[in-house]
């Protein structure tokens, strides 16, 4: 970076870190966090339901199982941006006057549900088949088996990757900036458009994402070590 740039940045710093801008960035950071957190909470709840549906064996539930499988496979293979566009235009066609945040939130929930459903399913399947057999011969219903036998054994294997996904997902929310949601990446663009140097603006935005993501990532590693240490094969 040329000397001129640094001088320019030096000039801008006080204005950049002025009160309103700080509040603006803080709100944007909050929006980023909200999108990923709410998305993952909804994703966890619905994902759990989807995973439970996928593991049933009742013939009557077959259409539901297929629907759950299709949903899970589909939304993990479409880029965030495309999902965002689809949700946006579908609701536009329905003449629903939704806020951009809501559109982004719905997209986020759809995607998180699909990914977390896969994580949950994989975790539930890691419980040995013989636990299901034993419960079956003791006349446990499917839900009773899940609730009293499978989930208590599976949650330790499910939670760390779900949290890991949450940390990953924070970065994905940056794309919501493309439909005008005032999250962190959008805040960066706004500031850049206002005339602040790109280096300063995007450097700050990168730093803010880092400060949000890194501690959570470390905590996620801690969770993994505590709950589900992988045995050395």
């Amino acid at each position, binding site marked *: 970076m040329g000397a001129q740039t640094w001088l320019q940045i030096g000039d801008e710093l006080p204005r950049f870190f002025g009160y309103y801008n700080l509040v603006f960035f803080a709100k944007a950071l909050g929006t980023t966090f909200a999108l990923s957190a709410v998305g993952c909470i909804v994703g966890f709840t619905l994902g759990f339901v989807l995973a439970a549906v996928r593991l049933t064996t009742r013939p009557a539930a077959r259409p539901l199982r297929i629907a759950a499988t299709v949903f899970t496979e589909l939304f993990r293979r*479409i880029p965030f941006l495309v999902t965002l566009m*689809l949700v946006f235009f579908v609701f536009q*066609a329905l003449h629903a006057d939704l806020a951009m945040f809501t559109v982004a939130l719905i997209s986020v929930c759809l995607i998180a549900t699909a990914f977390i459903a896969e994580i949950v399913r994989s975790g539930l399947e890691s419980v040995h088949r013989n636990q299901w057999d034993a419960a079956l011969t003791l006349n446990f219903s499917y839900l009773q088996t899940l609730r009293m036998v499978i989930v208590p054994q599976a949650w330790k294997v499910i939670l760390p990757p779900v949290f890991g996904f949450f940390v990953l997902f924070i970065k994905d929310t940056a794309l919501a900036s493309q439909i005008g949601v005032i999250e962190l990446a959008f805040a960066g663009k706004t500031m850049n458009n206002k005339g602040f140097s790109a280096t300063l603006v995007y450097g700050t935005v990168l730093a803010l994402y880092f400060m949000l993501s890194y501690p959570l990532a470390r905590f996620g590693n801690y969770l993994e070590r505590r709950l589900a240490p992988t045995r050395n094969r």
Partner: protein
Amino acid sequence: MQFDYTPVLERLPYLIGGAWLSLQIAFLAFAFGMLIGLAGASVRAYGPRWARRIVGVYVVFFTNTPQLVQIFFIFFALPDAGILLSPFQAVLIGMTLNAGAYLTEIQRAGFESVRQPELEAAETLGFSRLQTIRYVIVPHIVRVLFPPLSNQYILMTLGTSMAAVFGVEELTGRAYNINAETFRSIEVFSVAAVLYIVITLAATVSLAFVGKRFFRARMRWF
């Protein structure tokens, strides 16, 4: 709601061309990222402390910040330093650096997974250093790395979609163009979605086949 897929289907070859470009970008970024990853993983596993620190910072930084904003920085901020890049170049460099960080971590885990007992067995059987590397270490690492690398590649293919933000005309970018031209929004993005599903499914299936057949790797379903 009336759907008219004709304008979109007329432009299907254009979209498929975009999908091909997406695949190429992903491939290039993956290939260059692998080189970075190999270097980085080697340094992390075998290098001096100061070098390990540098690689560590690189990895930690690029895995905790969004790829989109990384590319923003490369495209909008680097010009301040006199580095002017085309949108395509900025996207490619951004994706490569981002991939390099993840691939460093993946490969490092692979290097560290080599088991002591296997090395001891090779030694007591009279393998030379080079022979151990060739017949024991490399096959093992390749087998262990194939699934996570495949997964990363598929994620990267989906990640090329953000190139559209910079005007690059890969699949999503071309979908944007068709949308602007025909206003058949839901139609064009649903077709684009289908194309992404097709290429990722094809990639998943073929990588699973190759992994099982040629590397005897434990392939998961992605």
